[in-house]
């Protein structure tokens, strides 16, 4: 099997906040298409993580190929900052907002549910989907596959993910699947590509199989 890992995207520093904002909008849109609306913050961060590790299945570059391994699951501070800005600008609605102490991490984290203010963002989302068709398809299929997780599993399923749960990285260390380390260490991508090795599967098919397997691991260990 050939292996052509995608390098993470290189972004101009001044454009990062804008790209993070767009990222939030397209993730919320994909989750809404899958019926996951309003979206819990944890699910949004988790889908962002799964999109990063699984984007090479679609031969797309990860938005971010590293993150801090936290005991409570994936959390991207920059993504949360982008969400907060979008809420402040009135493009995203936040509900049931509270700051809750995460004991294992000895820090507070936002607990809220989000939904797009559709009339204000639809035109931008439509344009984005036209320009980045493959990415839009990837995120839509990923969110649909992700939606098979139960409400209790949403936001904590990644703790069983092939890359996130790998013990080669300790808690509070950096999980790197292509930023500085070899993309071959993206075990999630590797596992997704391992399904039915003798058959030629569609990339989206691998997402559903991966999320089905993840769901089983979360349910049964």
């Amino acid at each position: 099997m050939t292996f052509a890992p995608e390098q993470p995207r290189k972004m101009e520093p001044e454009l990062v906040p804008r790209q993070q904002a767009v990222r939030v909008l397209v993730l919320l849109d994909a989750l809404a298409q899958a019926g996951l609306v309003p979206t819990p913050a944890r699910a949004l961060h988790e889908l962002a993580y799964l999109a990063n590790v699984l984007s090479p299945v679609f031969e797309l570059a990860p938005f971010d190929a590293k993150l801090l391994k936290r005991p409570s699951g994936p959390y991207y501070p920059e993504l949360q900052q982008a969400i907060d800005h979008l809420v402040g600008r009135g493009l995203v609605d936040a509900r049931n907002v509270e700051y809750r102490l995460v004991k294992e991490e000895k820090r507070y984290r936002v607990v809220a549910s989000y939904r797009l203010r559709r009339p204000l963002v639809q035109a931008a989302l439509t344009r984005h989907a036209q320009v980045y068709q493959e990415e839009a398809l990837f995120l839509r299929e990923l969110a649909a596959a992700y939606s098979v997780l139960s409400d209790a599993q949403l936001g904590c399923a990644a703790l069983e993910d092939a890359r996130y749960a790998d013990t080669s990285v300790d808690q509070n260390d950096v999980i790197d699947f292509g930023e500085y380390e070899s993309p071959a260490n993206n075990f999630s991508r590797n596992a997704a590509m391992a399904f039915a090795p003798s058959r030629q599967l569609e990339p989206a098919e691998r997402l559903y199989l991966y999320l089905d397997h993840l769901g089983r691991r979360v349910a049964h260990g």
Partner: protein
Amino acid sequence: MADPTDNAGAWQKDLPAIKSTWLTGKGSDTDLPEAVRFLRAVRLLVIERERLPECEFDRAAAMVLVSGTFYENTQGLTRCPFLNTGKDPLTGQVHYLGVSASGRSRVYVGGDGDLLDALAADQADALPTVVYTPKKGGHSKLSWYPSGTRSLDNVHVFPVVFEEPTPALITLAIEGVYQGELKTPDGVPSEAKLWANASKGWASDKAEARVQRAVRIGLHARFPHCRIKAEQPEKDGRTDLEVVGDFGVSPDATTNFAVLEMKVLREKGSTGNDYAPSTITAHIKEGVNQAYTYGTDRKFRDRMLCCFDMRAVNEGPEPVYSAVKSEAETLGVHLCFWYLYRSSKHYRECKTAAALKAG
């Protein structure tokens, strides 16, 4: 170089199970139109549910294809994450779903009329909908309303049964596509047109690819439990369409049902260039050879040659296949034939002439 898929991190011990996973077919159809994907997912879901002994047959259900906006604007729906596995009850509810048949549901109270009222109350009666009418003993029906239940006349009914793709049923599925989309150019969108200039009989240079795509979509809709593969290259060449049963079975129980070779018979090309009768005969003969070779090399149960005749005169299948009929019988290649009219007027003229000839 080591195969990176052998390094699955925390899932390393799961690799044997991962490699022998039963395929579900979910996500295998992303290039199809949304309505086709949805209909296919709903049919699979209902077939899956009816396989279970606890399946309910009490009341009707509706499955509606919706977008994210619908979920954002509709209150009181319950998320059913396991719905598209067939594990959750379907009847007595309206299900608002995406293309992969997952989404949110609501219970309705009453009979069939109340189901339609519930859809109207949710402003969903103009959205593509499948109404599931369950009946024990394999008699359930799925009524597909592509324009919603507001347009009750625009309906197609499908049985809820697992149909094995035999040559007869495949032919029936293609006949449906032919009647609905291919027979005449009327109402065909420009991106699907088979004619470069229909009045002059000039076939589009994309005619074969477009016929293939239409047939592929039709086969997907008829056989939702099968993978319909197009353009599969091997040492022996490239197949046009393959019907493969690899969903819901162990990897070693895959069935290669049928290989279809598609041929468009044209006497004028897209710029008016002529195709000699001998060239067309050779084209048909080549189709028989291809269907036989692919079928035997790749171990398909059935081999079919499907010809779509775009020539000026409809001679029918007998004269068209006369040169290869005996050969095809010996090689076990099923011969199918459809005639493509140049306009609805051309169709009416041919039909009238045939009736007069028959007396």
